[in-house]
C-alpha cells in the first residue's frame, strides 16, 4: 500500500484541510517520513501542536490513529501485549473438568501427553492475547498512524523496547513467534524534553523541532480557527502573544493559549484589546501569579499603540 502523497505541498494541503496550519519544516519532514518510512520525533514546548499534527495527518488520509500515551512506569504489558491470565485460568479449569474426555480413550501415556500438548497450544494463542497499541500497529492491515505521545515521560528501559520495534518493525512474542509489520506505520513520537532521549532513538528518527510559530503562521492559525475575528484584532492579539513570549516568565503561552485567548475575546465581543480586557483574561495566558504581574507591568508594550 502506498499513500497518495507526491510532494511536500501535498502534505501542507492535506493538513490545512484539517485546520492544521503547517510550516515548511513540518511538511517537509512529514513528507520525508512517509517516503523514507522513518519515525518522526517531534520535540518542542507544550501546546505547539505536536500531538495535533499526528492526529490531523491521520484524519486527512483517513488512516487509523493508534495512540500510546507514555508515562512513568509504562511497560511492555501496557504498550505491547499482555496475556489474559484470567481467561487462561478459566481455560485451565475447563480443561481440568474435561481432562477425562480428552485423555480417556488414549491407550498409553505417550498418546495422552500428545493429546494434552495439542490443547496446550491453544493456551498461548490469539484468544488469550491482549494486543496493546504497539502490537496493534504492527498487525494493522492498512497503514496506521502510530502516535507515541510524550515519550520522554517513559522510562529509559521502555525506550529500549521502542527502539527495537521501530528499527525492526517486528515484535517477537516468545510463545507465538515473530510478528512482522504488515504495513509499516507512520510513526510520530512526541517529546517535551523532560528527559533526554537516547542517541540511538534519535538517530533512528527524523528530528522535527516545533517551536512557537512565527507571527505570520500564528496569524494564519488564529484566522483559520476564528474566521469571525477582525483582522485588526488578530494582529493585535498575535503581537501581544509574541511580546509576552519575550518576557522572562515561567510558562510561556503556547498556541493553545493563543487560541483560548482568541476564543475568550470573541465571547467578550472585544474589537480592540484594552488593558482591562487583558486583565480580565489574564488567567488564560499566564499561569503563575508572578507571570501575571510581569505581563501587567509590560502592558503598554504588549498591547501596542492602543493602550
Amino acid at each position: 500500500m502506498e499513500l497518495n502523497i507526491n510532494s511536500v505541498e501535498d502534505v501542507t494541503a492535506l493538513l490545512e484541510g484539517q485546520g492544521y496550519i503547517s510550516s515548511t519544516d513540518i511538511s517537509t519532514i512529514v513528507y520525508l517520513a512517509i517516503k523514507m518510512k522513518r519515525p518522526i520525533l517531534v520535540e518542542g514546548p507544550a501546546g505547539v501542536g505536536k500531538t495535533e499534527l499526528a492526529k490531523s495527518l491521520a484524519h486527512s488520509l483517513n488512516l487509523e490513529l493508534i495512540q500510546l500515551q507514555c508515562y512513568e512506569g509504562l511497560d511492555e504489558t501496557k504498550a505491547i501485549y499482555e496475556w489474559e491470565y484470567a481467561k487462561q485460568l478459566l481455560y485451565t479449569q475447563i480443561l481440568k473438568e474435561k481432562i477425562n474426555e480428552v485423555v480417556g480413550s488414549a491407550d498409553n501415556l505417550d498418546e495422552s501427553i500428545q493429546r494434552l500438548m495439542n490443547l496446550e497450544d491453544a493456551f498461548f494463542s490469539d484468544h488469550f492475547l491482549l494486543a496493546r497499541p504497539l502490537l496493534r500497529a504492527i498487525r494493522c492491515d492498512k497503514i496506521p498512524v502510530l502516535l507515541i505521545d510524550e515519550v520522554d515521560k517513559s522510562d529509559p528501559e521502555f525506550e529500549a523496547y521502542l527502539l527495537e520495534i521501530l528499527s525492526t518493525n517486528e515484535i517477537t512474542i516468545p510463545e507465538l513467534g515473530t510478528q512482522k509489520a504488515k504495513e509499516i506505520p507512520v510513526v510520530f513520537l512526541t517529546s517535551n524534553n523532560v528527559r533526554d532521549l537516547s542517541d540511538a532513538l534519535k538517530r533512528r528518527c527524523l528530528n522535527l523541532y516545533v517551536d512557537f510559530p512565527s507571527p505570520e503562521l500564528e496569524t494564519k492559525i488564529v484566522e483559520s480557527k476564528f474566521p469571525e475575528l477582525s483582522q485588526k484584532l488578530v494582529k493585535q492579539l498575535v503581537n501581544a502573544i509574541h511580546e509576552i513570549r519575550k518576557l522572562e516568565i515561567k510558562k510561556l503561552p503556547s498556541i493553545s493559549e493563543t487560541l483560548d485567548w482568541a476564543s475568550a475575546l470573541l465571547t467578550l465581543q472585544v474589537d480592540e484589546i484594552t488593558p482591562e480586557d487583558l486583565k480580565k483574561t489574564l488567567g488564560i495566558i499566564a499561569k503563575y501569579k508572578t507571570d501575571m504581574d510581569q505581563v501587567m507591568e509590560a502592558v503598554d508594550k504588549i498591547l501596542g499603540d492602543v493602550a
Partner: protein
Amino acid sequence: MISMMLRFTNYLRYEGFSVSTSALNNAIAALEWVNPVRRDQFYSAMEACLVQNIEEREKFARFFKRFFEDKTPLEFEHEDTTFRMQAGEFADQLRQDDDYISKIIADYIEGDVLKLMENIGDKVPFRQVENDVASGLGMSKDKVRKEIIKRINLLVDTAEDFAATSFHMPKDQRETLSEFLVDRLREAGALMKQEPIKSHGRQKLLPWEKQRTISTISFDKLTLVEHEKVKGEVEKIAKKLKDALSRQRKRSSKGHIDIKSTIRASMKYGGVPFNVRMKSPKRKKGKIIALCDISMSVAFAAQFMLLLLYRLQNRFSKIRSFVFIRNTYEISHFFTKHPLEVALQKAVQTHNIGMGQLTNYASAFKSFLENYPNVINKDTTLLIMGDGLNNHNDPKTEYLKRMAEKAARTIWLNPEEQEYWYSPSSAILDYEPICTQMVECATIDQLSDFAKNLIL
C-alpha cells in the same frame, strides 16, 4: 550530490559538530525525495537528518549557511576592503612560496574551506612535508605532525610581522588582522595534522563561533558562571550514563531462569508458571584509582572528573582518589564523610599540598608508591588526570612504570588540547608510552565520551 553531502558532513565534523554514520545515511536517503533547489525544503530535510540535539540547531543553521551560501570568511563582513586586501596580500605572499601546503593555506585564508577539507588527514600534506624535510624518508606520522606544527609556527611569526608592519591600517585593525591570520593558520594546521575524521571532541573554539556552548569549551576557559553550568552538565551526563547502563543491564538480563521467583509468581495461577522470571547476570565491577593533578592548570578538569566518577560510583567496586602537586595525598575520606559538593571543595581546598606550586610528576608518583604501596592491584583502572607540564623536572619514568605494571590499565586524561601536548616543559612524551591510553579531556563532550568508554 552525494559527494557534496560527504563534504558537508566532513565540514560539520571539522567544526566539532558530530554526525553519526546513520545520520549521514539518512541525509543521503532524503536527497532522493527533496530537491536541493528548493532551499527551504532542502534545509528542513538536512536539519531533520543531521541535528540530533535541539541545542545544536542554531549552530547547524550557521554551518549550513556558511557551507552552502557564503564563500568568504565571516570576519570579512565586519571589516572594510583594506582589511580584506591586506589579508589577500598575505595570501599572495604565501602562494609565492611555491609549496603545496602554503598554497592550500593561502586559499583557506581567503575563504576556500573546501580545498583544505579535501586534504584533511589526506596523505598529500604529509607526503609534501616528507619531501621537503631532508631526513623525510621513513618519518613517523607523529614526526610529520610535529613538522607541520613547526611549519605553522613559523608562518604564525611571519603573519604577526606582516600584520604589525601594515602601517597603512589603523592600529586596532592591524591587531585584528594579526589575530585573524594567526587563527586561520592555527586552524589550518590543526586540520592538516588531523587523522581522517576525528568524530568527537575538538581542537578549539573557532573564531566565528560566537555563541559559546559549554559542552565544547575547554575547562580552563570557563567563566565562573559557566563553571556552575558545567557541573549541571556533568550531573546530566552521569544520569544519562546510568540510564544507558540500566538499559544495557535490562537487555542483557535474559540470563538464566530464577526458579525461586518463578515458582513464587506461579502461585497466583494455581501453580502454572505463566510468568517465567529471569535472573540477571552479575557484571564484574572494577576498581578505580584516580590520581589528579590539582595545580592551577588542571584543577577544574580534575574536579569535573571526580564529580563524574563519584556520581557513577555504583558502577565500580571501589573508588579511591588522590590529589597531587608535588606529593600525593588520599582524599577518598572526604567523599565518604561529606556530600559530594562539599567533599569536592574540601578535597581541593583544605588540603595542604602546596597550592600555587609547580607540579612535579616524578616526586608525586614516588610519594604515591611510598605512602600507598598496596593500593593498586590487577583489577585496578588507574586514572591519571594531568597536563604533563613537569616544569623541566626530570620525568623519572620508572615510578609511573611500576604503577602501570601493577594495574590492569592506566589511562591518562589530559585536559590540554592535544596540539599542545608536546611542549618542551611537558613530560607527556615520556609518559605516554607507559600508559594504555592517553586521551584528551578538555571539554565536557570529551569527558562524557571517556566516561562512556570506561563503564559501558
